[in-house]
């Protein structure tokens, strides 16, 4: 952050220089006209001092550009709203103890990769014994009953099982985002859970490499976890959120 209080901007090698690198393709043959078009496009982004450092013909109809330019925009970080999932990181033993002491019963967590999405590695990383990068998954928590339904689970199946198991939390994974496939699936699920009156009762958690906290909120989920999440993150959040809800209910 620089002298002007809390504002920041991009940094290359001099405070405030605003250095930004861009790349993109234009559907036109390479040449001076294309280079100018690239500069116009960059200027439309409000960037200054743009330099086309690469103009590479991909084929007669497409040209690839690498551009360096400078932004004059700054961001006042004190005004930034963080949709961060709020929780204190806890160790597995702590979490288990917390569950015993706070709820006096095992928590039930049900997870799945919904729709046509078959990428289970992410949800497995969170739920299965093996876990992720040496962090064991929720199955390894004695106080959590973790049910992982796996790949390509229809939303209906997941909602039905969640109701049947009286789950405390539903964990959904979505990895394929092309043509916004994830938005469609996630919206479908939340609508289903709402019509069945389950969305209030359970903590709804969504995860995946392109999931962000703000996306989760927007779609009506309680929390969203992205790349590099560990099982402990999810468990810590979950027990704290459930305890909160309990105390609010009292």
């Amino acid at each position, binding site marked *: 952050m620089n002298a002007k209080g809390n504002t920041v901007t991009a940094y290359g090698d001099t405070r405030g220089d605003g250095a930004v690198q861009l790349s993109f*393709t234009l559907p036109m043959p390479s040449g001076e006209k294309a280079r100018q078009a690239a500069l116009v496009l960059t200027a439309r982004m409000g960037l200054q001092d743009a330099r086309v450092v690469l103009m590479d013909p*991909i*084929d007669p109809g497409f040209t*690839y550009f690498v551009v360096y330019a400078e932004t004059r925009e700054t961001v006042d970080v004190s005004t930034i709203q963080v949709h961060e999932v709020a929780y204190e990181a806890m160790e597995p033993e702590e979490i288990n103890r917390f569950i015993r002491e706070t709820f006096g019963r095992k928590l039930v967590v049900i997870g799945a990769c919904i729709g046509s999405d078959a990428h289970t*590695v992410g949800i497995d990383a969170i739920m299965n014994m093996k876990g992720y990068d040496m962090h064991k998954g929720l199955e390894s928590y004695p106080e959590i009953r973790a049910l992982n339904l796996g790949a*390509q689970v229809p939303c209906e199946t997941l909602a039905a099982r969640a109701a049947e198991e009286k789950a405390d939390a539903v964990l959904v994974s979505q990895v*394929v985002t*092309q043509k916004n*496939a994830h938005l469609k699936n996630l919206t479908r699920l939340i609508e289903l859970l709402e019509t069945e009156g389950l969305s209030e009762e359970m903590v709804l958690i969504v995860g995946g490499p392109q999931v962000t906290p703000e996306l989760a909120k927007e779609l009506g989920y309680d929390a969203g976890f992205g790349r590099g999440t560990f099982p402990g993150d999810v468990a810590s959040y979950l027990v704290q959120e459930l305890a909160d809800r309990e105390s609010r209910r009292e």
Partner: protein
Amino acid sequence: MAALNLDEAEVGRARRAAARIAVDTLSQIEGKTTVAVERAVLRLLGVEGMTPEGVPWANRIVDDLLARGLLDRGAAAWFVRTLVSRGDSPAETAKHMALEGLDDEALPEVEPGELRDRMCSLAREGLDRVDRSRGEREERLARLGRGPEPLRYLIVATGDIHEDVVQARAAARGGADIIAVIRHTAQSLLDYVPEDGGIQGVGGTIANRENFRVMREALDEVSEELGRYVFLTNYCSGLCMPEMAVLGAQERLDVMLNDSMYGVIFRDINMVRTFIDQHFSRALLARAGMMINTGEDNYLTTSDAFQKAHTVLASQFINEQFALLSGLEPGQIGLGHAFEISPKVEDSFLHELAQAQMVRQIFADCPVKYMPPTKYMTGNIFQGNVQNALFNAVSVLTNQTVHLLGMPTEAIHTPHVHDRHLSLENVDYVFRAMQHLGEEIAFRPGGRIETRARKVLADAVAMLEEVAGTGLMEAISQAMFADIARTRVGGKGLEGVVEKAEDYCNPVGDLLKEERTAS
């Protein structure tokens, strides 16, 4: 060539165990057929078209037969009997059966000899179309030639075939030798081929005859422009595996992804169904002179690439034996291999090198399709290009046959037009810079590289002998591949498996077998 000193006796043991596994598995499915095989047969006999609701005639006819418990004699017989009784063309017959249903009560029996003859001559027409495709490929290849190995294999996956064409053309001009049109995410679980090309795919493009044609035409055009034959690939997998084989073979695809276990493990398709479908499909792909690509690379996305390297090798032996038993020539058996060890592992390059060279040596007559890093790619597209560079290095060093180009954006999106461009530049440079490196270096006897290869081979032998003991289906139930367990009675599509009746007949299968043994 940098060669590894491997124990040939161990290789022989592995191959013998794999042969036992394949023979044993095939013996368990011998008396069975599937709805997909029967639909494929109908398609070969000339059944093409769909109902106004978009249901393919082949599905209507086969579903009808299945529902009535008549499929056990084979769809061909019913089709030909109807055709004979109505005196119609195959097309008209198909339309009638699909729209009006089978009139089995009223259908006169046809004299077995005549029935056979008619079935055979229709099947031969269907296969003629396959043979013509093959002939045309051979003619074009002879005239245009093809790029040097490792062949550059690039993916297009926009979800729209016309956009795919734009991207494929750019890729070919940049040096692609093989274009793979990635298939719509959900298609493999559809028990029919969506004929309507207009559907917008997700994560890939709908695979059907029309889309195959569009891309084939575009690649033929660009092949002429470049004076180099550009290959086309799609998937021969999922619940419609045998039908995809028919479409691919007839529309002159050159390569198809076809694995003996991929669908079972990664799509939860029933294993009995899969083994039947696979066996028929491969026989047809063999006839079409196409290359198959197996999918062992996928195991390493769910299990650890370092610890489970031997499962890849074991599976390659099994896939090879299944392929040989279906009539594929070694030169058609493109085994899947991958560069997937975590970049955090020390000496990961040495291990990858050992494994890649080992596979090249053990399967000296088979092409190998070498897959790039995927699982450990991140949003760091700059570093991704470096991971791909080392992958490219191993590939050229060990002289792989088919080289799937890694994308810097692997962890982000299906490739954009410039992602491919950057990857082609990467490969161009690394292949050129290291062109003859393989000829110039030797591995230290007993060193880290050789030791790694020997260990993986030994583990694969042990695994194969264990699987030969328990049987492949049991091994899969024990999650021996990809750390994923599937049962013999679980998974999708089991309801489409049918016990053959005494008088079951599959004229296509018979022809394929006969003409193979004849030649």
